[in-house]
């Protein structure tokens, strides 16, 4: 350990929080000499004080204190970025792990998180303040800024907005990154100057695959929000969507080749609507035949029935496909004839270059398809009568029926649409992965994580959840000090996030409270 690094860590551990505490104390005083209408929200001032102190020490606190017009969301965000960037740049020069600081980060973070999560919500209830999201914010804050969270939340009991979550979550992530950087100075995700490129590469990998995951998860969440059941056939509907696309492309190309006398290939893009239509009809027929009796009150144990019948449907699809398509992997041609997109290496300074970043061409295309389809679904749900009908049914079936919406039809539509989205996801991925009848198993497990993470029933939640899972998996697999463990635990990283969300915010990131 070189002395500069020790001092820097000390600065981070002591001076950072010290100046943050000074900022936390000083900045709310800005309101003292102002008229009531000019006063800034106390919470905003406190956050500015903490971030300013953490990022730039006395300079940050002074800047915000003497120039309060600078206290904006953008400057606070910039403060977070500066904090993370500066500390990571210096920490990568640490040559030996600093045990005390690591212990502080590892033990003190969870300790303060537990204390804050226990006491602060009680304080909110005691003063009858709005305690929505307080548990999550207190735990995140305890982990990220230790005892300072009591200063922020105890006396003023501020209403917890999404900004709080983002800021505290970012600080918590920074803490973890700091511990990691101290312990693994040579890791690709830490070691300068390449780590910026590498982190960007892995984040891009995660975003691309995460957006693709989202499309499948959206279908699952749609079915849950309207029908209140989890479809255990979702993985198989995803799989069979891929196969419908495959056979359509194969037979279609053969037919056109015979017709024209020249060899014709069909772009896999055309397989997506075909798979969508077929699986939509399959889903609607299944819902009418097997799920409608459940909603009609003909089934006693509804939950168990829904699980068993969708499980059975999934098995039926999988083994029928195995019998027809066989066990050997298959794949369609490419969406685009560009093997990969490459952002070439750019020399920024003498010591620092950015790039290259490589993303597989078909994945980018599939990501775009996924995002377009999710936004189309959002438009459908928000702007069309039928979509509103679905939403109304998901909120209150009886009230929807009073308003002239047929809940039976909405149930059928939701299952058919959800199944269709799974199939479209499969048809979008068969040019990317080797396709076998059991290909849905891994993907569907991830979808359950995504929908719970995003909030059961929330379409935007599924999109954000998918991207978070994608990024976490990519960074976990790419940054773990042991490459083998990183690869083997890839799915486990997302499960850790999943467990934390269940613990801190059981409704998920965008889920609504059940009353």
């Amino acid at each position: 350990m070189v002395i500069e690094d020790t001092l820097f860590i000390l600065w981070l551990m002591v001076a950072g929080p010290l100046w943050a505490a000074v900022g936390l104390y000083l900045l709310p005083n800005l309101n003292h000499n102002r008229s009531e209408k000019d006063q800034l929200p106390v919470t905003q001032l406190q956050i500015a004080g903490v971030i300013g102190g953490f990022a730039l020490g006395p300079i940050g606190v002074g800047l915000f204190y003497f120039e309060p017009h600078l206290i904006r969301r953008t400057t606070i965000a910039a403060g977070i970025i500066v904090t993370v960037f500066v500390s990571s740049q210096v920490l990568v020069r640490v040559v030996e792990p600093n045990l005390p600081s690591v212990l502080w980060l590892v033990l003190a973070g969870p300790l303060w998180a537990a204390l804050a999560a226990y006491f602060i919500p009680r304080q909110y209830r005691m003063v009858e303040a709005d305690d929505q999201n307080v548990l999550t914010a207190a735990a995140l804050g305890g982990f990220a800024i230790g005892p300072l969270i009591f200063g922020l939340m105890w006396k003023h009991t501020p209403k917890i907005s999404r900004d709080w979550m983002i800021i505290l979550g970012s600080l918590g992530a920074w803490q973890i990154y700091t511990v990691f950087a101290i312990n693994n100075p040579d890791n690709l995700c830490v070691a300068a100057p390449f780590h910026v490129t590498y982190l960007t590469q892995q984040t891009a990998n995660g975003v691309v695959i995460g957006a693709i995951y989202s499309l499948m998860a959206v279908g699952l969440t749609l079915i849950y929000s309207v029908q209140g059941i989890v479809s255990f056939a979702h993985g198989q509907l995803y799989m069979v969507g891929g196969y419908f696309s495959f056979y359509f492309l194969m037979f279609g190309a053969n037919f056109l080749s015979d017709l024209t006398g020249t060899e014709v290939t069909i772009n896999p893009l055309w397989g997506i609507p075909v798979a969508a239509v077929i699986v939509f009809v399959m889903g609607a027929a299944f819902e009418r035949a097997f799920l409608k009796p459940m909603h009609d009150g003909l089934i006693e144990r509804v939950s168990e029935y829904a699980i068993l019948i969708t499980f059975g449907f999934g098995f039926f699809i999988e083994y029928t496909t195995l019998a027809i398509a066989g066990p050997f992997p298959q794949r369609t041609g490419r969406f685009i004839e560009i093997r990969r997109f490459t952002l070439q290496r750019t020399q920024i300074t003498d010591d620092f270059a950015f790039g290259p970043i490589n993303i597989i061409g078909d994945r980018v295309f599939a990501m775009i398809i996924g995002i377009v389809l999710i936004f189309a679904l959002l438009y459908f749900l928000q702007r069309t009568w039928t979509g509103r009908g679905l939403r109304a049914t998901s909120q209150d079936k009886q009230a929807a029926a009073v308003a002239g919406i047929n809940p039976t039809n909405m149930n059928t539509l939701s299952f058919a649409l959800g199944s269709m989205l799974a199939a479209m996801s499969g048809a979008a991925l068969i040019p990317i992965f080797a396709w076998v009848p059991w290909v849905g198993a891994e993907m569907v497990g991830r979808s359950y994580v995504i929908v719970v993470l995003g909030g059961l029933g929330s379409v935007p939640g599924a999109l954000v959840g998918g991207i978070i899972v994608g990024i976490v998996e990519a960074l976990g697999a790419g940054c773990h000090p042991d490459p083998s463990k990183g690869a083997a635990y890839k799915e486990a990283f997302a499960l850790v996030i999943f467990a934390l969300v269940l613990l801190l915010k059981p409704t998920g990131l965008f889920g609504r409270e059940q009353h």
Partner: protein
Amino acid sequence: MKNRSVTLTLILVVAILALMPFSVIRADGHCEFADEAIKIGGLVPLSAPGSVGGGVAMSWAFNRAVDDINADCGVQIGDQNYRLQIVIGDSEGSPERGQAVVERFILEDEVHAVSGVYHSAVGLATMGILDENGVPTVFSEPWNDNVSANGIMEYDGRPPRNADGVDHIFRISPASSMVGSVVVDWLLAEGVEDIVIIAENTDYGQPAAADELARFEAAGATVTQINVELGTEDFVPILSRIQARESAPDVVRILVTGETSFNLTQQMAELGIAPTEDTICVTNQFAFQSEQYWENVPDGNYCTFNRVGIIPSLFSDIAIGLNEAYFEEFEDIIPSFAMASYDALHIIADGMERAGTMSDGAAIVEAIESTDLDLSQGRYYFEYGNHNPDLPEGTPAFMWHQWPDPVVTMMQYFEPGQSSLDAAVIFPEVYQTHGTGYMAPGESP
């Protein structure tokens, strides 16, 4: 007189016509079978997470072997001909499930012998049960060294199977070390020094990777090993690690099977990691099934792969016939494990015939030890067994009850969409078909 001859002719014709069906039976099924059949348990993976494609190919080969043997009067024991019957059991690639199936084979189906096994983990988990119950077994695909190494000595913490003097387990697939030595010898001959091994986390992948790693390191090469889970679809985050290295490795060696290997090889090629000018791509034997390979790895031109079994240009008549039948069924080249499964049943049937019993395990083992048969993969014999128990110094323990001659070659595609029958055999030199030990991307033989 004339009428009489006409009448006789008519009687003759009618008699011939009446006897024709019987004569057809005699010609086609020209032997009488005993009521009892000889049952062989075929343990193969037919459900995920096992390698279902491998299991289906092995099942097909078993049925084909049974048909051929029965068409040739089955198994003759004493003066009776016994029909051969295959009982297929699904191991699902799981050791626990494999054990349950083997117990069912023994207790319910009362099989007389067992063959098959694709996954090494299943082989290792079931061999003890089979041996304890005295069931002669010829494994046709597991590669883990210990499958045969445990026959005579304590190996890797496991007690020897033949403590009572008889070991019932034989293997005709190669041991991992036999394959590894060929791959490593070839790569070292090509002058590689910096190797990345990507191995599956199984009883096949890990020992195979350990064996190759030891050989590379003994030769002074640097090896980075990355383990992956079978069934993983997205390898990009892991491959980005390789891409982020300061210098590209000389070779990426893939010790992963099934569709997982296809995904890995294709993503590696798409990202431009291998095959390239700097980096050799060595994928696994699945690449030999060229129809599947090109469909799933369209960017995999110039990848090399290890191949078990005789090279296509040296196929015997049996192998050619088997390959044609396989192609008719699956529209692909026959894999080695299907050929080995076909051969395994012939070895068992031959052993029973020579032993003159279908139920005396020890006698059948003794007969199989002295096998000398030409089948689809070549001439089968077992050099070391109770008939020749003393392994000379330096002979690895896995040579016990191990067919010593599985041909292992390195092959390489050099044209997109090329049939594996036309791919170049590049190593060992004696088998080279295109006069070259390796072609860098863009080169041709």
